[in-house]
């Protein structure tokens, strides 16, 4: 995969991975073994027919490849860029078992997605409206995926978004050089073509509640995909200093509000020259690489475990290392030191070593006594995880679990009839593709709840026998009246 030169790209926001050429795409397709029982399909959270679309590309039927892809996945150009393929499809590809690289499934998906955007392809089947009105809370990947499925089934779908631009974490969280805004807009446009309405500047829970949606606004079912954006802080001394911020704040100021372009954009950022990012997941990688591009001279990554245990997508970690970020593995922050006027002067850390395994089996890091040291920094960014967004929990009578996430059953139904939830708000912080998978699963449950018989959906890869069906109507799909219990 051709990429921008590391030192050059560390100073610009253009996409890092330049994408396959047609020739490379065709060569890569030929590597697919077309397995009898493909392991890649079940490894995909939305069960894309991977060998199918690859075969179409190889046959030079690019439109056919897009049709197949878009059946299962609304956002191929996005997922091809941000899915952790090494843990999913590419991780189980037999071609990659020994010394060779697995088939570059993610890059091929991106190639098809980008071609579709360039050509202006979209698949808008004639959809018979079925009279049901569905509300989606949150325009991130979970909400978008659910909206697409419900719209394809004939429902009148409205997506509510609190920000002034839709896209959720795709827009505010993932930087331009990994996921350009143009790609997000193009994918949103295909949602619009399905008839989905997106209403921004709407804070559900406060402007109106979930209950009001069902009781007063005429919605028959609601999906909640509000995400887990509440940032965690460590509670160490010096955290209130003016140079300390969460990765979410850094990324939102930069990605959504254009703070990198201050003062042409009004939102400031006040980037430091020496930035220390705590954490090593994808959000940390994004924060570090954005800092470089905004002009930081030195960027550190401080993580209390080892490189092997970093949860980041491998490609991002690799790119970050190439761009010159200084990784301090097995290091934990102890205190952030005051520069005198509320600014950050330095950070004191302690070295760690791996001790005994804990309950999860991972070796727990323990501090090495006497190994404390300081290094100069003028900005500290926390990327140590997030918790559930509290607003829906505060304003709706939904059962929450003890960590503040919405409690859902295996059908993604909440404790309120007609209300479903998925993505980070139900599971805790995870990935874009898992959120999309959850959005699609919730859509399946919502259609069953509403009694919609959706004969046009083909879920590739499923080869179940016709058990639990009578005259082709599955047990799970049934009509019943929604009963609201008085509180």
């Amino acid at each position: 995969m051709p990429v921008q030169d590391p030192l050059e790209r560390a100073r610009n926001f253009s996409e890092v991975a330049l994408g396959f050429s047609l020739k490379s795409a065709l060569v890569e397709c030929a590597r697919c073994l077309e397995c009898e029982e493909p392991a890649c399909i079940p490894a995909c959270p939305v069960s894309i027919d991977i060998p199918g679309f690859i075969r179409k590309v190889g046959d030079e039927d690019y439109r056919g490849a897009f049709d197949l892809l878009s059946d299962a996945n609304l956002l191929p150009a996005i997922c091809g860029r941000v899915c952790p393929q090494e843990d999913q499809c590419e991780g189980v590809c037999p071609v990659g078992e020994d010394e060779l690289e697995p088939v570059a499934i993610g890059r091929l998906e991106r190639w098809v997605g980008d071609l579709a955007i360039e050509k202006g392809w979209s698949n808008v089947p004639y959809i018979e409206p079925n009279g049901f009105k569905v509300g989606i809370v949150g325009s991130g990947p979970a909400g978008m995926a659910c909206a697409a499925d419900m719209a394809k089934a004939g429902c009148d779908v409205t997506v509510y978004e609190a920000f002034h631009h839709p896209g959720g974490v795709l827009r505010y969280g993932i930087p331009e050089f990994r996921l350009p805004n143009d790609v997000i807009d193009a994918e949103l446009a295909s949602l619009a073509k399905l008839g989905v309405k997106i209403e921004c500047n709407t804070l559900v829970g406060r402007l109106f509640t979930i209950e009001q949606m069902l009781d007063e606004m005429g919605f028959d079912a609601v999906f909640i995909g509000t995400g887990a954006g509440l940032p965690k802080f460590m509670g160490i001394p010096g955290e209130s200093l003016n140079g300390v911020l969460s990765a979410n704040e850094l990324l939102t100021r930069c990605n959504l509000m254009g703070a990198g372009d201050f003062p042409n954009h009004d939102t400031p950022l006040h980037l430091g020259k020496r930035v220390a990012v705590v954490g090593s997941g994808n959000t940390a990688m994004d924060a570090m690489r954005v800092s470089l591009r905004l002009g930081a001279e030195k960027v550190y990554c401080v993580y209390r475990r080892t490189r092997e245990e970093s949860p980041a997508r491998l490609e991002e970690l690799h790119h970050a290392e190439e761009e010159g970020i200084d990784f301090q593995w097995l290091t934990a922050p102890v205190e952030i030191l005051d520069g005198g006027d509320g600014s950050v002067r330095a950070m004191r850390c302690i070295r760690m070593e791996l001790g005994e395994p804990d309950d999860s089996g991972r070796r727990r890091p323990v501090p090495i006594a006497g190994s404390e040291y300081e290094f100069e920094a003028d900005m500290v960014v926390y990327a140590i995880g997030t918790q559930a967004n509290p607003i829906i929990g505060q304003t709706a009578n939904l059962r929450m679990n003890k960590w503040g996430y919405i409690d859902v059953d295996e059908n993604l139904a909440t404790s309120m009839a007609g209300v479903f939830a998925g993505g980070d708000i139900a599971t805790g912080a995870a990935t874009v593709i898992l959120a999309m998978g959850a959005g699609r699963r919730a859509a399946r449950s919502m259609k069953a709840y509403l009694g919609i018989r959706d004969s046009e959906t083909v879920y590739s890869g499923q080869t179940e026998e016709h058990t639990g069906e009578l005259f082709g109507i599955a047990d799970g799909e049934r009509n019943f009246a929604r009963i609201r219990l008085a509180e």
Partner: protein
Amino acid sequence: MSAKQQVTDEGSSRPVASGREKTLDNDFEIVAREDLSEVTYLLEVRHPMMAKAAQPGQFVIVIAHEAGERIPLTIADFDRDKGTITLVIQAVGKTTQEMQRMCTVGTRLLGMVGPMGIPSHIGHAKKVVCVGGGLGVAPVFPQARAFKESGAYVIGIVGFRSKDLIFWEDKFKEHCDEFIICTDDGSAGMKGMVTDGIKLAMSNHPDIEELVAIGPPIMMSACAETTRFAGIKTSVSLNPIMVDGTGMCGGCRVMVGSDMKFACVDGPDFDGHLVDFEDLMVRLRRFTAEEDLAMKKWSDDCRMMKAK
């Protein structure tokens, strides 16, 4: 093969939605504007749904245009019949000055989202004091009105630097049983700060149960100190720098006792006796360098526009 056709966008017989249709009848139009002084102005924004939902103590986040920043503004009033939200704004920096110039009747904001924050707790206190300082008169008005409606005896105290800056005097008085104006220079009411007014009220009424104070942090801190040992439950409304207002960035974090709270989702009201005001004031200075730069560029741009 399916009975339904697969039709591409070229031949689609289904009307294509723009995707950004307004379904909630809010286009953030400014329907009224009043200039209360040279630096303070009032905007009434049409938003029927928010007018219905707004409660005292809540705020909105406003973004005036595409390259603008998101700023929090307390809801100074809401009219459920007219369907409007009223904001009272002080032109102190680039954004508020730009809005002062651009936001005339008939124009639209790019976005106004809310009502945000946990509504003020209007309990069953029999005697309360509502204190507003400078701009703070506006946001404390809805609370005073709500307390009055709940049957409490309301003592309203407002503070301004001088007579020319006073606004909403009659509007406020209407919902108060007692009303004290304080001016720094003595040009109206009693000479002194709102804390002097509070001390006066406390000496006349030993049975005050609650006090709400809204204004600059230094003023709210002083009010909290005045009531600290008098057993008066004191609530303040904090105004840290915000970006999203929905609890996802942590920029508005404040220390309340030993806990870290996010003003946008845990507040904006907090117990005035527990808030670390020093920390709040330091954090409000996060972007002074950028603020100066933005103001300089703004004045240069204005001068250039005038020169044309």
